């Protein structure tokens, strides 16, 4: 067994040590990260249609293969917002334009996971494990990143927002889960007598006891963090009227600003599987994008002085068919666009090797090809933004060698 095989084996075999997502005792000890650095991953489940988000309006093929759902050219009604003379942004993401102008927002087009699957579940699994095509992976790449962060451990160093721990956070490093980030919650275990009795039952080395202890510690820390008076809601008149879930940005920012030990967070949103009635510059997809854009803008704003040291990655399991289908929608495809935000990004650019939507440029005659592996992008961020050493990254993405600079333009 060579070294690479061994590394891979230890990722796979961790299932034996840690059945399920648990295994709260185990941590890497290698020390190298920068405690100032923060990372937020946002996963859009269902396969976001990247071609209608960062729109290649300069490619005439785009309009011929999407007769009813193409986002019209800049300057027209509900048209794309010009980015660089070839690509334009779906107007639903209007709220992000100040970040684009500040050059802290970048896109990587024609990117994604090289595995050819068009199954949501497999594709999400692969993108979350960071091991495309590997069915037995039991840990997620973001959990492995947490394992590589040696900064003094806090129960809220990594936070997953949502009721369930997602695959991307599966693994031995502990991750706090919060259902939402709205405010402190009171539980019976806040009473000392109750706490003492339950702690006696959950006092062992087993996975449940560790989970329980993590749960109590995170509950206490998050309650303290969320008791800090919240900043006044900003007037968002120039960003349109956001649906309620746009508040995720403000809430997420609160967690980071109120506890300096919060370093990594994950949140996911569903509803991107636009098989039917997708719309163009307005309609279903644009309506989903609006709260996302407002939330991201609020997040950047709310992070304040932390923003320059924060990397925000927005990704989805695959793109959608280049052609529209018979129902004014698109089916499961391949290549997609990734969004990167953060003070350290070389933003204001659409990166990636994007040739055209002409038939012979498409993957299997139907989808945007993938010219940049998502792990290449993540490797670059982990190294250049998060200051993780290459040896650590090799354990985050074993068996993968980032061979190309993702930050190229065509």
């Amino acid at each position, binding site marked *: 067994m060579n070294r690479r095989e061994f590394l891979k084996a230890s990722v796979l075999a961790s299932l034996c040590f840690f059945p399920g*997502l648990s295994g709260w005792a185990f941590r890497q000890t290698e020390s190298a990260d920068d405690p100032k650095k923060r990372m937020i991953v946002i996963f859009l489940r269902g396969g976001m249609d990247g071609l209608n988000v960062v729109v290649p309006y300069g490619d005439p093929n785009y309009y011929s293969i999407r007769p009813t759902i193409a986002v019209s050219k800049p300057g027209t009604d509900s048209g794309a917002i010009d980015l660089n003379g070839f690509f334009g942004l779906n107007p639903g993401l209007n709220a992000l334009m100040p970040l684009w102008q500040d050059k802290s927002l970048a896109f990587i087009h024609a990117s994604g996971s090289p595995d050819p699957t068009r199954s949501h579940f497999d594709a999400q699994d692969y993108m979350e494990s960071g091991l495309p095509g590997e069915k037995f992976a039991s840990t997620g790449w973001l959990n492995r990143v947490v394992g590589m962060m040696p900064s003094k451990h806090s129960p809220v160093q990594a936070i997953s927002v949502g009721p369930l721990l997602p695959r991307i956070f599966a693994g031995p490093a*502990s991750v706090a889960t919060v259902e939402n980030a709205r405010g402190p919650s009171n539980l019976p275990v806040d009473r000392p007598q109750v706490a003492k009795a339950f702690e006696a039952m959950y006092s062992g080395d087993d996975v449940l006891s560790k*989970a329980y202890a*993590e749960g109590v510690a995170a509950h206490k820390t998050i309650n303290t963090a969320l008791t800090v008076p919240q900043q006044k809601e900003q007037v968002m008149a120039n960003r349109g009227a956001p649906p309620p879930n746009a508040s995720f940005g403000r809430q997420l920012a609160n967690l980071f600003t109120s506890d300096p030990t919060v370093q990594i967070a994950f949140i996911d949103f569903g509803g991107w599987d636009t098989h039917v009635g997708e719309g163009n510059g307005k309609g279903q997809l644009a309506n989903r994008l609006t709260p996302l854009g407002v939330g991201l803008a609020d997040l950047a704003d709310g992070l304040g002085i932390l923003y320059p040291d924060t990397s925000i990655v927005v990704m989805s399991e695959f793109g959608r068919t280049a052609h529209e289908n018979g*129902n004014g929608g698109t089916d499961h495809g391949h290549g997609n666009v990734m969004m990167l935000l953060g003070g350290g990004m070389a933003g204001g650019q659409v990166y990636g090797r994007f040739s055209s939507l002409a038939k012979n440029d498409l993957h299997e005659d139907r989808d945007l090809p993938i010219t940049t592996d998502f792990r290449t992008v993540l490797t670059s961020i982990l190294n250049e933004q998060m200051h993780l050493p290459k040896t650590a990254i090799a354990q985050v993405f074993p068996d993968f060698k980032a061979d190309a600079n993702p930050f190229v333009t065509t």
Partner: protein
Amino acid sequence: MKKLLIAMTITIWTMTPALTPAFAKPANTDENILHALDRLSFGPRPGDMEAVHKRGINAYIKDQLNPDHIEEDAKIQQFVGASPALTLSATQLYNQFGPPAVKQAKIDQNLTESADDKKKLNQIKNDFYKKVDKDITDAKLMRAIESPRQLQEVMTEFWYNHFNVFANKDQDRYWIGAYEQQAIRPYALGKFRDLLEATCHHPAMLFYLDNWQNTASGFAKKGRFAGLNENYARELMELHSLGVDGGYTQKDVTELARILTGLGLPERNVKNGAVPPESGFGYHFEPKRHDQGDKVILGNRIAAGGEEEIEQALDLLAENPATAHHISYQLAQFFVSDEPPATLVVKLQKRFTKSGGNIKAVLTELFKSPEFWDTQYYNAKFKNPFRFVVSTVRATNSTPSDFTPLEQFLRQQGMPIYGCLTPDGYKNTTQAWLNPDSLLRRTSFAMNVASGKYKGMEGAAPDYKNLEDTFGNSLSDKTEAAIKSAPDNLKPALVLGSPDFMHY
């Protein structure tokens, strides 16, 4: 490499004490009974241990495998019988709770296009939905908690997740109750092929996975019927039958989608009240939208025809060895262990194939297998939130007067009833459900229920000794010790919030 991994797995498994269930003692009759109750029901109620003891384990299992011979609880019969959401056909539900009903209400109440009236109309629409939603979620909990046909309910839960339909997709809001009632429960212990047939033709599924719009390419474009939509075809292979590793290709998915073209819903906007043509549970096959060419699926040629192509395709899928394996693996995982023993899967697969996909036969094989009775698997499955809630209510012998707080708790735990958005349904593994925050909230739930003040279950405050008896005094020494040193008023909550009770 692969061999080495397997070897590592075995060694590590046997060497790691934390992974051996702390509660495993040498099996005695009580433990076997508890195991049977844990797996064939949603957990023991007070008196169940004694009842099975008297009846005998084998007889109990046989009873449960034949639910038609068990009298359904009278209250459940009455509730279900009186609920439109659970008795009407999909078309009737559409008319009584969907757009036609809303339209009628608009006329009856003279509502205009004003903002106020629109708000009122929206309220009417929501009320229709809420009524259906309340009936079906209440019925789900009531049956899981109180039905004596426990295995049927357990299997209904299993198959619903296998053929999952998400409740919050437009008309599926009022169809999912009928879907479970008509397409799942009657076949929960029947033939797999019948389940495939029923789910494939139920409006709830046709709508959820978009097949109602799936149309031959080249069909004269009309509204939304203008091309192939392979959403259902893919999930039918990947999730419902062959499994993701079942050896099919993208080409097979496209071919199956072609076969399924035209299988949809009756036209709803028929003028002059003409009854839309429909079959079965309310589907409509439209030959004009059906692909007229020959198809080749999994190497088998299916000659151009009509609806019979779908039957041939479902036959092929049901009879494929990959399907036998996929279903057997899932059943073994559901009933025995997150990592089911391969020997058991092989056994079940054989039985599945030999019996022509007879689910009762496969389960009979499962329940008599040494793997099922291997004590290392006793109390080693981690409860998902639904099972945790239902088993808690059963253990306290409560009959809730209000199910809403339980539904809300399940929502908070990430498992809203009928609320799994994706077609793969809810999982039943530790990996999917164990996390610090939700574990902490389970202990809070246990505290609230045991206090006797939980809304809808007031007065449920269980007696600690009764709880111990209900579980055949199976608590681990550590749990017993912790409970003993705790104040009396906390004892019942500690049992229900114990690590032991998180498992089954």
